[in-house]
């Protein structure tokens, strides 16, 4: 055990006393993530391209007419669309048609009708949709009022959102809230009118039974929902993006560290120090375990430092201590461990299969770049098509970013991410150890 520790200490010391390596391991990801986060933060706040086409699943279980208002607002009418139900308020010319030009929600979202809530939730989980809006069966019933009971108290509309896409999720949540508020306002307006007429002794029934009198209150023009109404506070933008890009950049650069650190075995073989270790009275497996663990240690130390440094950057931007990764310390520690294991094991398997250190470094860089691009180290992957979204699941950068975004959002639902990375780490570590032990030249 002391010899394993000696090997780890040497490798960690060598790594952390190499200035150029330190620049690559720490300064570069810190700078890149901060720059990207600040740049994208400006875009999201309206200075650049608008947010649009957020993929949304709409489940209308409402047994009344009001749920259909969501459909009318979020899904554009198409000629010959036989499956689409008639508008909720078919009042002839009095109800203006919803068009892309005058309904900003049609641009903002790319909404699809889904038959049941479970399917919609599952598809949000799989990343196909950013959010699902689920209108409960008794939604319209809750909006109705009678002369005996003027209270309007509809059951809540469920917004099931992907926490990995915090901006899109918040937009959909705000949009839904706005539509429901608008309906409540309309219903309250009708109820007030009805009450006034009733108090004046008029035959209110004839008015109340004709909702088209109030049709303008339900037309798309009445729903002034736009990006400006989203409930994302402007000052939170850079912090959210720092979580996303910070985590992704940290894992991305950890892959380089893992690849380089693991390839040092092959460099040591070339320099003769590995052979020199082999002729000492040290079991071969101890040398290999020492090398494997030193790769793991280098990656772990890098990630720990980077995640602490990102807290520093966020706090500096905010002007106060801001624990951007949340405060669930055990799960943060768990994620750092499994993430380091996964990254280190990828470096080890590349080295185990490579013939030379140069070959290992080249292949390692290509894989790191793929995982970085696919995993969201350079742009937000939440806005990508479903097929590419599936490809991103091949990247541990994606898993890491997903887990830390979840923790940052205050949730502890990271078990799938942790399991995936733990599995990758365990399998690759075991396989690379077997390959190394069978290789006579290492």
């Amino acid at each position, binding site marked *: 055990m002391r010899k394993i520790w000696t090997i780890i200490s040497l490798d960690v010391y060598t790594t952390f006393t190499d200035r150029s390596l330190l620049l690559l391991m720490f300064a570069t990801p810190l700078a890149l993530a901060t720059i990207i986060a600040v740049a994208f933060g400006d875009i999201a706040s309206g200075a650049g391209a608008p947010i649009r086409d957020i993929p949304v699943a709409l489940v209308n279980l409402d047994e009344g007419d009001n749920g259909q208002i969501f459909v009318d607002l979020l899904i554009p009418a198409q000629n010959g669309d036989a499956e689409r139900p008639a508008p909720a308020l078919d009042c002839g010319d009095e109800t203006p048609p919803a068009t892309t030009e005058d309904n900003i929600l049609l641009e903002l979202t790319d909404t699809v009708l889904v038959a049941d809530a479970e399917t919609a939730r599952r598809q949000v989980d799989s990343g196909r949709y950013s959010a699902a809006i689920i209108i409960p069966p008794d939604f319209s019933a809750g909006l109705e009022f009678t002369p005996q009971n003027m209270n309007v108290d509809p059951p809540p509309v469920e917004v099931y959102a992907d926490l990995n896409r915090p901006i899109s999720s918040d937009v959909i949540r705000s949009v839904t809230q706005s539509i429901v508020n608008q309906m409540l306002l309309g219903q309250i307006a009708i109820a007030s009118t009805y009450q006034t007429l009733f108090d004046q002794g008029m035959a209110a029934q004839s008015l109340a039974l004709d909702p088209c009198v109030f049709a303008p209150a339900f037309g798309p023009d009445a729903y002034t929902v736009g990006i400006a109404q989203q409930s994302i506070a402007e000052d939170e933008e850079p912090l959210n993006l720092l979580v996303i890009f910070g985590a992704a950049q940290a894992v991305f650069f950890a892959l380089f560290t893992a690849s380089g650190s693991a390839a040092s075995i092959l460099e040591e073989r070339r320099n003769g120090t590995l052979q*020199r270790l082999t002729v000492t*009275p040290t079991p071969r497996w101890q040398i290999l375990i020492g090398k494997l663990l030193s790769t793991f240690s280098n990656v772990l130390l890098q990630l720990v430092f980077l995640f602490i440094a990102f807290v520093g950057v966020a706090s500096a931007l905010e002007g106060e201590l801001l624990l951007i990764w949340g405060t669930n310390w055990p799960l943060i520690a768990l994620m750092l461990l499994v993430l380091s294991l996964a990254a280190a094991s990828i470096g080890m398997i590349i080295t185990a299969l490579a013939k030379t250190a140069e070959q290992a470094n080249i292949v390692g860089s290509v894989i790191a770049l793929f995982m970085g691009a696919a995993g969201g180290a350079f742009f937000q992957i939440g806005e990508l098509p479903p097929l590419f979204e599936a490809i991103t699941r091949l990247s541990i950068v994606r898993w890491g970013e997903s887990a830390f975004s979840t923790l940052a959002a205050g949730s502890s639902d990271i078990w799938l991410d942790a399991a995936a990375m733990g599995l990758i780490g365990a399998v690759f570590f075991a396989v690379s150890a077997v390959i190394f032990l069978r290789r006579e030249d290492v």
Partner: protein
Amino acid sequence: MQTIVEARGLVKTYRRNDGTEVQAVKGVDLDIQKGEIFSLLGPNGAGKTTTISMISGLIKPTSGDALIGGYSITKQPLEAKRLIGVIPQEIALYPTLSARANLEFFGKMYGLFGKELAARVDEVLDFIDLTDRQKDRVDTFSGGMKRRVNIGVGLLHRPQLVYMDEPTVGIDPQNRRRILDTVFRLRDEYDMTVLYTTHLMEEAQELSDRVGIIDHGDVIAMGTQAELTKQVGEEDRIIISLGEEQIEEANLEPIRQLTNVQSVRHEVIRLDALPIVENDDEAVVDKRGTGSMLAVRSGQTTETIITITALGGRKVLSQIITALNGIPIQSVEVREPDLEAVFLNLTGRALRD
């Protein structure tokens, strides 16, 4: 005397990329006695390093085994390795660490820790005469200093047996002398056994109590120098250098006709193809592959050498020069029977071939 290395039937076979097999070592048997300097002499590619790698436990033999102090290197490798100190041909150190840090690291890998480690490191630094530079990074050292640290690492755990694999390759005469002196000190002051590999006949001749001659993966002769040279009789070797002068085989016919001349051969050495080693003030070429250094100046690129074996070489020398019939001679050297002659006698080739 007590045997410290007993190798039997060591074979190493490698598989080439095309699937064919090549036997680098073909059943080597070795017996090395405790306290002796044993040289394994052979040309490059003869199998010296492969043999030493198997005996040190670096690579597994395809078949055969070696007992080191009674421990099998294949079945009890850790016990055997505790008795061995390996000094590789190349500098095998961590360049960004100091000399002391390198020694401490490898000392720990030999199972030394704490005060014992510190004491051994101090002792070795003193032995290699680098105490005052112990805290400097190795990559700031000269080639000779690196060599000394490289040797020191192999001595930390006070091994009974030290393997030195061509430790003088590519270094200047001053440092070579220092290393050869170190070999004697290891035997005489520290009672260590030294297994020394070299392709330089002079080194083997100067250092060794016994010599094993290896060629094409086989040990073809083994014994003291006296025992080995006895095998080639009383023939002297006459080596004549003609400089860049070119000759035909027919020019040598008159020499072959002389009484007492046993064999005559000539070759043209390309000097620019030989390894250049550093010297203090000028580039020199290991011209003969025998350790004798000749300066190469003014663009000489080839050298024609005639090698003649003859009984009573000095007596027939004048006849040989006459037989050359006016061909300009640059230098003449008469050598009494030596290991080079033994190798030539056994293989029909010079060591440098």
